[in-house]
């Protein structure tokens, strides 16, 4: 059991920061959502490129909650069942703006570097 958990963590570690950013963006774009909704949106957007255990969405939601970037409250889902809804907070929006900017900068740099390397004969 212990060993199983360890490998699981390792797999998600790669995704962790990116996943948090995507979840935050989703909540900003679509407003309050429950975990299932977030998972669907991610699935839809990633066009099956990203294979993730949907359970990890919840660890991401908890991390964001700990930082105070999203808040949670119980509500009723589309099909009238009790569900926990997550909503981006003000500091979450600020954080998203910062993260987005730095992501774009870094991915731009990495992209340029990779292209350069690729051009070499």
């Amino acid at each position, binding site marked *: *059991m*212990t*060993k*199983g*958990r360890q490998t*699981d*963590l390792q797999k998600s570690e790669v995704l962790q920061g990116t996943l948090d950013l995507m979840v935050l963006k989703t909540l900003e774009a679509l407003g309050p959502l*429950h*975990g*299932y909704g977030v*998972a669907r949106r991610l699935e839809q957007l990633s066009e099956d490129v990203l294979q993730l*255990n*949907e*359970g*990890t969405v*919840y*660890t991401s939601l*908890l*991390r964001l*909650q*700990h*930082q*105070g970037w999203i808040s949670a409250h119980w509500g009723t*889902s589309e099909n009238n*069942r*009790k*569900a*926990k809804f997550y909503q981006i907070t003000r500091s979450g929006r600020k954080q998203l703006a910062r993260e987005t900017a730095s992501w774009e900068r870094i991915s731009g740099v990495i992209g340029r570097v990779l292209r350069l390397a690729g051009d070499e004969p």
Partner: protein
Amino acid sequence: MISGLRVFAAKLRGSFDKSRQDGDLDQEMREHLALLAERFVGRGMTPDEAAYAARRQFGNGLVLRETMNEMRTFAALERLGKDLRYGARLLARNPRFAAVAFLTLGLGIGVNTAIFSLVEGLLLKPLPYRHADRLVVPATIFQRFNSDRGSVAYADILDWKAQSDLFAAVSAYSPGDVDVTGEGEPERVHVLAVDADYFRVFERPLLIGRSFAAEETLPGASRVAVLSYALWLRRYGGDRHILGRRLELNGLPCEVIGITQQRSTWPSEGELLVPLRIAPLKDKDLLRRDNHIFQALARLKRGVSLQGAQARLTVMGEGIAHQETGRAGTNWKLHPLAAYIIGPTLRQTLLVLFGAALFVLLIACVNVANLLLVRGAAREKEVAIRNALGAGWNRLAAQFMAESLLLSAGGGLAGILGGYWSLKGLIRFAPTDVPWLDRVHMDLGVMAFAAVLCLATLVLAGVVPAIQAARLEPVEFLREANRTSSGGRRSSRLRGLLVISELALAIVLLTGAGLLIRSFSRMQRIDPGFPTRNLLTLQISLPRARYETKPQIAAGFDQVTSAIRRIPGVLSASATSSLPVGGGGFYLGRVFLREGQPEPPATTDTQAAWSVIQPEYFSTLGIRVLQGRQFTDHDTQQSPPVVIISRSMARQMFPDQNPLGRRIRSWRDENLYREIVGVVDDLHYDSLTEKIGNNVYVPHQQDTWGTLAVLVRTTGDPKALLPSLRRQIASVDKRLAIAEVKTMDQIVAAELARPRFSMFLLVIFGATALILAAIGTYGVMAYNVEQRVREIGIRMALGAARADVLKMVAGGAARLAGAGVLGGIAGAAALTRLMRTLLFGVSPTDVQTFVLVAALLTLVALAAAYLPARRATRVDPTVTLRTE
């Protein structure tokens, strides 16, 4: 940082409503799975297929829950709590092991906290005086006496006072005793005659009143005194109206002008401060550089380092030693006050004891580590199975560590309790001349030290066994178990190593103890030079107010001793200015010249201790008169000056001649020719352990002192005669104070009190080490035999004789003991050098001690191995093999 705090706060919240959050998560997960499954059904799956696919897409719910749980709460702490509870259950299940481990660690930690309390109180705590780190004691270095704590000349003090860029203040003082009469009982108190700068050295030490004005230190000024806080409380009940009142000191009136604050001055035994009345310009002798009759105290200026001040003084002192013949072979030394008070020997003793205590703790740790290893080996099966089931080794090691944590914490508690009681005992039985024992407490610093020791024991005793026990490869275990041979081969090697180190540590301790025992027995065998039994001493001062002239004083003392001689049970009585064996009085070293001898430089002259005595001194003490006669009542102020010298003095000054009838003088001091009328046997004058020096005796009638020590030789227990002694002395003068009543046996015992005490402590440590080492060896050997029962059974079934088995087991023990003894001897040879200053007449590498200790430890180790070895020979092959 801030995000870390946020997470911490969230975790704190999470820890409190864990169950609600678990419920929330469960509900979310159920909902999520249900929605996923609905979606799959919508795509045409059967409900069962859909539920399965949903679970696949979601991932492992159990793992998720545990991960989230860990994120939400302090899971590591919770695990620790669980491990501690588990450890406590394990310990409770094996109370004998727990008791042995607690006791062993408690012993080790207790010994250390007690000794550390002493070290802290005596060596580490700052002195109670203001800016105490800048207080220094300037002293004279006398190369020929191998001393750097000599008293100083007044001219030196004047030189130092002139160095205003080095010292904020320099003070001369002179300690003594004075009889306080007037109100209340007559009482003798320690007095300090100090100059006006004394109060500047201690930076405003006065509680009320004022200090001495410069003109009050001149001869003929009106008499004033400052009371110490202690005397003020004790004798005058803390009466604030005492200022301006008149006391009687030695019968002379004296006005109280001030009270010091509590513990604000040094030497702290000085209860009364009076002005040091000197007129250096009038008194030429006082300014002589070789007249070392004062003590000095100084305060370094802020920003001046001790080394800097010392460097300047050394250069100045060299110049003086060069110019003044009487100062050849001397210089100045600045002692920090704290170091001066404690002294190098006591400091070294404390450090040696501290080191020894740490060794005891090390041995205790090794023993507990051994016990834990054995226990770990016993749990190999459990560990192997849990390991095979997937428990990580670090998780298992953490669990073993939790158990050790319990042990070291429990041992620490036991140690603090034990240390508290041992410290009480230590202080109670400590030699009375150890300063500052009232500053020794188990305070926060000691507690912190005990906590550090607990951690150290945890690491030393717990880590290796925990890793060892947890790092078991299941495969290896199963293979070893299948072979039915001895289990845990690696751990048996480790246990052997522990036994070796334990024996080695014990050897080092026992060697130290052995050296102290031997040097103490050397000290005890020293012959003081006279029979010490049934000899009582006491001190009497004749107050100058009533005994004004020298003939009056001499007559007064003659009356006192003859009154004492009339008591039934008194064989003889006499009086002296200074008692043998450092028993008290005034040690006066003087330089002597033969008649006609030219005045030599100071390094080659004949030195001797000057004692003033009454007639019958030698017969009372029991010193043989080798040549000539004792003093008699006919040696008076009117008769020719006479002197009696000791045998070694006679040999040094008159190597091949008869000294009787020759004349000598104490050059630079009395400077009066005295005729030698007798030669007496040598005796230990200054202290038992010093080598015998020269002695010169002169009659009290011809050199009259106001304070003498009276010696009384009795037929029986001298203390029984004390009431009649007091009556007889009172019949001469009922206002005389009697002080320092001691038997000569007590004086000799006090001389040996410090070495006895450190020997006693080190012997206790050594014995503890020996017992622990024996237990450790026994435990390991017994365990080894137990592990090898099958192997031994097979060997015996194949024809091995009992003797072979015995040889095999005992041989293993002997190898361990041999390695331990060798290591121990090497360690002892390296470490006993550090206790050189504590030894007397024994070299730090005394072969006899080393051999004896090595033999003792080998014997003990073999004895501890014998029982298990005998058990091995009793193995019955048929029984052991049947259990296969």
